[in-house]
């Protein structure tokens, strides 16, 4: 259920950046704390992408491990189960360094015309 909401949010973001161009690939960075099930997200993305520029686009997911830092003693660690208190000094003042990402990193689109210098600034040509 959660993955359907996430898939719709990803689609909205991608459509805005695709500006009408057909999208062939969407690369997503997902922190483990987002509790996203990759297969479920792919399933829903395929459904919400129907009849949009993202139809048949691949969805590439990179999962980001959770990482925490203690504000009191500076200790950094990767929690093995959701434990957010510092294991070194038991402080509750901790900073989340990673693990809550839900970020569209890049997309791959089909271009029928040469890219203008203006567009080039925000784009980099893929190796394909």
């Amino acid at each position, binding site marked *: *259920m*959660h993955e*359907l*909401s*996430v898939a*719709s*949010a*990803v689609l*909205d*973001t*991608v459509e*805005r*950046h*695709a500006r009408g161009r057909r999208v*062939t690939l969407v690369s*997503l960075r997902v922190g483990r*704390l*987002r*509790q996203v099930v990759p297969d479920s997200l792919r399933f829903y993305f395929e459904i919400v992408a129907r009849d949009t520029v993202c139809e048949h686009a691949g969805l590439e997911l990179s999962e980001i491990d959770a990482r925490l830092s203690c504000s009191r003693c500076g200790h950094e660690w990767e929690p093995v*189960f*959701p*434990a*957010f*208190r510092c294991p070194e000094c038991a402080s*509750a003042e*901790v900073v989340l360094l990673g693990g*809550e*990402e*839900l*970020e*569209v*990193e*890049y*997309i*791959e*689109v*089909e*271009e*029928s015309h040469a*890219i203008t210098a203006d567009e080039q600034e*925000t*784009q*980099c*040509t*893929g190796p*394909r």
Partner: protein
Amino acid sequence: MHRTKVRIVEDALDANNTIARSNRDDFDRHHVTVLNLMSAPGAGKTTLLERALGEPLEGFRVGVLEGDVQGSYDADRLAALHLPVTQLNTDPGFGGECHLDANMVRSALPSLPLGEIDLLVIENVGNLVCPAEFRLGEDARAMVCAVTEGEDKPLKYPLMFRSCELVLINKLDLVPYLDVDLDRLLYSLDAVNPGVRRIPVSARTGQGVDEFRRWLLGLATRRATAGV
């Protein structure tokens, strides 16, 4: 036809967050403090609000935005308290959204009496997953967790439990009849959101409700003293 890689690096929820900020601007303009109240279905959000909002909250005027997939059962109950209650149903969406998002709240703004209230409580759709993802433009987030849900709930839904600044542990009157270990529930909560404010309550007997009311009062005063 050739393929181009377009670098984006944007949070997939940015669009929602932008609308949430617009909502927040509108709330600020009307000096309305907003609480997003969340829980699993049946944890007792509505009963707790009935208890807590039955008496006037000192000089503060309270309104409720009631989010449900379908129907106005909860809104009807709260309207009996003579509070301004607005019903927001999510069913025109994709088969009935399981949460409120910023855009749904935005669509309800014209029907909210923002000029006549100081505190708006948004009762979200009962769900421990999606509501945690979608900001609505609220000042604070609180959730209700009933003892009947078991001790491990915080460990299973860390995103939700971490996103709240207050956790109301409800149905305390049932503890003698259950196998639930309250200390273990609080320990799980502390593991996920260390030091979070929690208030044990029973919406049925009224236990702890005064403390929740004081917290609500503090929340409404927070804005008043901040001078916004």
